[in-house]
């Protein structure tokens, strides 16, 4: 067992989540922010409550939570952690990492709770 976990750490996991989140941020987020952040508030398109709710309550709502909220949150956490290191801000690697990835986990949990209770 000792040999099995010798020298292992979580960086590959964080990097994997960062990369997956980066793809979602680049490919999916532009459309989401275009529709819900600009076109809908400006009245260009209309999104009704009932259609949105029924769509969100299906499994698609959970998929949306994963790829548009959770993974980009891990992407952001990773970049903020390294950005703080770059700017020499913070008390040290593990504390910053704990706060950043912890926040992304909280965001994920909130997203799942919202879907579950919807």
């Amino acid at each position, binding site marked *: *067992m000792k*040999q*099995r*976990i*010798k*020298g*292992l*750490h979580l*960086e*590959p996991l964080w*990097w*994997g989540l960062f990369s997956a989140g980066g793809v979602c941020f680049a490919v999916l987020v532009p459309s989401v922010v275009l529709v819900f952040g600009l076109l809908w508030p400006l009245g260009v398109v209309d999104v009704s409550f009932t259609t949105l709710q029924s769509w969100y309550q299906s499994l698609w709502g959970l998929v949306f939570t994963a790829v548009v909220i959770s993974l980009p949150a891990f992407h952001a956490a990773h970049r903020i952690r*390294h950005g703080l*290191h*770059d700017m*020499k801000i913070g008390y040290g*690697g593990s504390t910053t990492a704990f706060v950043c990835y912890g926040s992304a986990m909280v965001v994920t949990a909130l997203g799942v709770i919202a879907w579950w209770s919807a």
Partner: protein
Amino acid sequence: MTQPRTCYVDISRYDPERGDQYPTMQRVQVPYDDSTSVLDVLQYVKEQVDSSLSYRWSCRMAICGSCGVMVNGIPKLGCKDFVRDYVAHKGVGRDHAANDAPALTIEPLAHFTGERDLVVNMDEFLTHLEAVKPYIIDPASRPNNPSAATHSQTPAQLARYQQFANCINCGLCYAACPQFGLNPEFVGPAAIALAHRYNLDSRDHGKHERMQVLNTHDGVWSCTFVGFCSDVCPKGVDPAAAVNQGKVESAKSMLIQLFKGSSIGDSRS
């Protein structure tokens, strides 16, 4: 013949034997034409202005990797970087001389310990390079094993690593890498690129030994893909790509270790 154009150059000077605590700038006026390299400027200064100037150089043709310096804050090979690219054309160089503003500022490579003038302690890079064992490891082909087969390789096998084999160990990528500047323990671009080069080599069997270095926090995982290392590389190695391909390899190797209980390429597996 017209008068040679001249420009001003600031050169970082530091001589601990003279009691210098920090480097200071020395401004010199130098002649140049379209073929004058930064290394030529340094040669001129040493021969005509101040023979105490120290800098490293050898081949003058971008293959020995000795003459790396910072030119206006960017890592460059002195022999491959030209004054003409810093002074505007059509005699504006003379205006540079007139208003005394330096066209070039030449400093030692960033992120390394300065030892004298433009000479830095390259051991800080070479220890990392040694750590990744940048040579073919093949237990079956020791000199005392006459039955060992020759190392044959197809062009396709060569193509897998060829790009990463062009490194000349000049250290420009370390001077370009803020992660190395922030953390000198980071194995760094060139060493990881060379580790990756040997890991990709079909004749090599040393991946397991190298992955132990690359898997650490100071290995591939210190990199944030700033990418400047690849921009300054005089040989087009793209060390940033190598380091980040190394992250994929490191993730695989750690996952395999977790499930199999022994790491990738391990002779016991």
